[in-house]
């Protein structure tokens, strides 16, 4: 296959989440497209611009949430990604709930949520990266089947960066991984 050079990352498809934090006592939600689990899924890491309103809250409280939206929430996801909590009260967009940490606001409308505590903020040459421990996850009751998340019914989506810039629904299952032992990353 002949190849052509392309400028910038071409990693796709990517998850699309809303990161939540209390800023000055009020829930705020930021759209994040660069985020990955690590340490066998016990932690998550994402880069954050320190000038972001949300970073203030994450630094103040040492806690945050990761909320996984369904396709129907896309207009609100886009609004959270295009406005700052300095200008818009994003807490009005969603019904907020709290878990064990009490200071990590989570979005009830999102089918899946995780409350996290900051383990460290790793400053690299280019950015500040928040590493958080997943303290507890929450899933809509109807999606929990035999202790597993019925991901196919959650209406999840992925987005493509790198010159495509679209949002796609989760497509058909190609193959289950259950026949393998869970691979360690």
């Amino acid at each position, binding site marked *: *296959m002949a*190849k*052509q*050079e*392309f*400028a*910038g*990352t*071409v*990693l*796709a*498809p*990517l*998850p699309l*989440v809303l990161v939540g934090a209390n800023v000055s006592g009020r829930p705020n939600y930021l759209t994040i497209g660069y*985020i*990955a*689990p690590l340490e066998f*899924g*016990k932690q*998550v890491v*994402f*880069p954050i611009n320190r000038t972001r309103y949300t970073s203030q809250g994450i630094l103040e409280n040492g806690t945050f949430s*990761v909320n*996984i939206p369904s396709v129907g929430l*896309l207009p609100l996801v*886009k609004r959270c990604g295009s406005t700052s909590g300095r200008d818009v009260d994003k807490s009005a967009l969603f019904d907020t709930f709290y878990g064990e940490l009490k200071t990590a606001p989570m979005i*009830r409308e999102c089918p*899946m949520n*995780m409350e996290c505590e900051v383990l460290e903020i*790793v400053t*690299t*040459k*280019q*950015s500040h*990266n928040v*590493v958080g421990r997943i303290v*507890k996850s*929450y*899933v809509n009751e109807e999606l929990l089947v035999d202790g597993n*998340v019925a991901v196919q019914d959650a209406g*999840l989506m*992925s987005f*493509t*960066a*790198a*010159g*495509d810039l*679209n949002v*796609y629904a*989760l*497509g*058909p*299952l*190609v*193959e289950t991984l259950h026949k*393998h032992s*869970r*691979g360690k*990353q």
Partner: protein
Amino acid sequence: MKKPYAGNVLSPLPVVLVGANVEGRPNYLVVGYVAPFDFGRSIFFSIFKKRYTAGGILANRTFSVNVPSADLLGRIEICGSKSGRDFDKSTLFETFYGKLGTAPMIRECPLSMECEVTDLIDREQNLGIIGRVVQSHVDNELLRDEKTIDMVTADLLVWTVGGDSGYYRLGERVKEPKAS
């Protein structure tokens, strides 16, 4: 109604093959914890410290990230189930090199990036590796123009967590509803 669940529910996630030369031979590892960083100029992924590939990345300070299409799933599973210590994974794919010269890339993957290591995030059992994307390489036929990649034709995969653990294709493009 929300119910507590133990574990990560961040889903769906990309799946890639990370390439590195280990003792002079290309080796490829399946990685499911990977994300762009730094406005897309860098890439982050997490690797179990004992992995054969980790040694090659640290020795050369270079690696590649290859995004496979769904038709490569059989070979992805071989890569994910065998160690380069025991099995020569360079025989599974046609390897090519780019600017760095030491980051082996997979010709069969529609999208590849060659990267140089810039930072390490040292966790307990895993190493987070951050690399600058030096150059990306895309199949000719997927480029609609110099800035547009046809991701539908690329036929990429995602995988899911939360006890579901499957490989999925992308579904329908989500049409933006009219202003709500």
